């Protein structure tokens, strides 16, 4: 096969390229330039591109850089900003997979005559003779990235390879070392790639402040309606958040959690942990890896990259949890599994917490 490997400049995609090459595929590497602004690896992530190029040189494969900055801005950054402006907490990495890596990048690869794309994600794809695909958790449970891939659909997965998904991270690093790849000891990437962690304009607030108007707001106790504190920016509050809802969390000394973010009224509703519990996650933008499962099917839901799974039942417009669990912030992804297999996903709809509370008696 002719495979285009998305090389981020990290160790996983480096080894992914090496593995495919060793398996006899015709491999070409490409690094996506997604973000034109400042980042932790320099302007346009130059350092990462150089790392990827060095690995490609070492492996003796062709390497290209694709500029997808406008698409990234449009499909990832702008929705991220708009989501926060509306009081949601989007997951840009998920949207990048959905719209860039497994859409624009994949499409380009196919136009250029490649048969498939590969990335360094820790996940597995199983294929059967009939062209059906199953997306499974990576062999290394600590590093499993099936969650951020849960938005992919059959046509995308049919053309996608995750060569390191069957390996553990230490195995990946050992292999990189054995092959003399310069990325062998490179730290894992963290956080949102376009939000710098250091310097001026760093952090989520530093990133959002020039792009969206941030409003100070009241913190209101949900059960009593009493104003118990203030926040600098309601747009930066995430449902489930505990810190920064001062003064001192709450006057009573009990732990207070953000239950709902109401940007229009510049209000954050807070309550105790029990008030955060919901019996349902309302979901929109639902996707299925394969055929849609029937309502009533029991699945495991996971609502963060490495979060724990909970039993739930598929229902119209969401999932019903078998046991109450903390609300998930609107904008976040809920991935659905059956066993180790990813079956689909959905984005938590707005007013998740409130809907959950009011819906809970009805179950």
């Amino acid at each position, binding site marked *: 096969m002719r495979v285009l490997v998305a090389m981020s400049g990290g160790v996983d995609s480096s080894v992914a390229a090496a593995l495919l090459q060793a398996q006899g595929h015709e491999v070409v590497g490409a*690094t996506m*330039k997604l973000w*034109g602004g400042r980042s932790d690896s*320099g*302007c*346009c*992530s*130059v350092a990462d*591109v150089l790392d990827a*190029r060095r690995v490609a040189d070492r492996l003796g494969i062709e390497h*290209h*850089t*694709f*500029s997808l*900055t*406008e698409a990234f801005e449009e499909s990832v950054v702008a929705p991220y900003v708009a989501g926060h402006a509306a009081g949601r907490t989007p997951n840009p990495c998920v949207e990048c997979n959905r719209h860039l890596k497994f859409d624009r990048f994949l499409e*380009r690869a*196919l*136009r*250029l*005559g490649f048969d498939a794309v590969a990335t360094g994600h820790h996940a597995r794809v199983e294929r059967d003779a009939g062209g059906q695909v199953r997306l499974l958790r990576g062999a290394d449970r600590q590093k499993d990235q099936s969650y951020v891939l849960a938005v992919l659909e059959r046509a995308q997965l049919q053309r996608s390879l995750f060569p390191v998904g069957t390996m553990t991270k230490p195995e990946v690093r050992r292999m990189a070392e054995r092959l003399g790849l310069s990325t062998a000891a490179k730290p894992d990437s963290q956080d949102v790639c376009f939000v710098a962690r250091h310097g001026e304009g760093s952090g989520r607030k530093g990133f959002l402040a020039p792009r969206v108007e941030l409003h100070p707001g009241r913190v209101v106790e949900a059960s009593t309606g009493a104003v118990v504190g203030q926040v600098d920016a309601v747009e930066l509050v995430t449902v489930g958040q505990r810190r920064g809802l001062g003064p001192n969390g709450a006057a009573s000394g009990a732990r207070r959690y953000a239950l709902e973010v109401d940007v229009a009224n510049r209000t954050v509703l807070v309550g105790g942990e029990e008030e955060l519990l919901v019996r349902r996650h309302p979901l929109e933008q639902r996707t299925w890896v394969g055929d849609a499962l029937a309502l009533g099917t029991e699945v495991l839901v996971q609502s963060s990259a490495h979060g724990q799974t909970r039993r739930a039942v598929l229902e119209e417009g969401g999932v019903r949890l078998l046991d109450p669990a903390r609300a998930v912030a609107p904008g976040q992804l809920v991935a659905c599994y059956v066993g180790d297999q990813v079956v689909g996903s959905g984005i938590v709809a707005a007013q998740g917490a409130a809907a959950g509370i009011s819906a809970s008696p009805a179950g």
Partner: protein
Amino acid sequence: MPAYLDNAATTPMRPEAVEAMLPFLTDGFANPSGLHGASRRARRAVDAAREALAARLGCEPGELIWTSGGTEADNLAVLGAHEALGGTVVVSAIEHRAVLRPGEAVGARIAGATPEGTVDLDLLAEALDEGVGLVSVMAVNSEVGTVQPLEEVVRLGRRLAPRALLHCDAVQAYPWLDVAALCAGFDLVSVSAHKFGGPKGIGALVARGHAAASLVPRQLGGEQERGLRAGTENVAGIVATGVAAELAARERPETVERVAALRDRFVDGLLAAYPQTSEPAPREARVAGSAHVCFSGVEAEELLLMLDREEVAASTGSACASGARDPSHVLLAMGWAPSRARSAVRFSLGASTSPGEVDHALSAVRAVLARLAAATA
């Protein structure tokens, strides 16, 4: 036959220039500042090359400052003049980044461009006033290949910004136009050797008498280049530049005629092969080697990658440190949307381009466009 159609990026060295520089990389390695015979020979070679290039640029040998290339010459002109004279810097929006970036660094006013790819003279006039210390407008645009209205620029500059020095980045002009005549009205003129068959890493800034007195050097050290550019001379590069400049200028009329015919054949072939092909700037306003075209509906990045596999070298004209192609700032200044700008390809022919290369490139572009169309359908 591989086709090299990226001559605006760099040109192959003239064999005569390679030959001329070799002795100065071997036996004739001496430092021209020395007091011994070998140094004097190196000094004489540098001076001879200086005379040759100065004659072709229409300046006195003493008005020519060797630099490490076009970028350094532009930086010395913009920042050196600004530091000496103060005032506002005015540059056009379609300048090369070697002018734009130093301009931006000192808060330059940016004069916009016309949709045809030339500096908008009305906007330029608006940007000029008595407080302006430097005006910089290029001779030939590095991406779309348009010749700029330099006479009008000089006239406007002298009338509306009487205090200002006028700088012209003529890096892309030298292979095609008589820079001495074209830039006669400018105080400062930049050129780069590797655009006309010389080596990389060498260029020059013309600083006419009064202008040289108004430049603050960007690097300090020895007294080379009248103290305006400290550092031991790149003797071999300078010698090769003199030879290449001489050859390019002498052969220019014949080169322009021959290459323009090849370019017309190539571009007409592209227009015929793919109906959505257009020329962003009018052909008659561009230099002979410029075959800048837009293939609507095609991502230039993809086209170039596929052409590379067919051994056709071309470019988008813009690049970023990561090696990715950003939408051209020139096309954006001409009023293009970023998505459309991503469909533009800069093919650039040079003195060495052969009819065979053009034929190969033409059939390769046809084949690749057909393949892309099939994959998109």
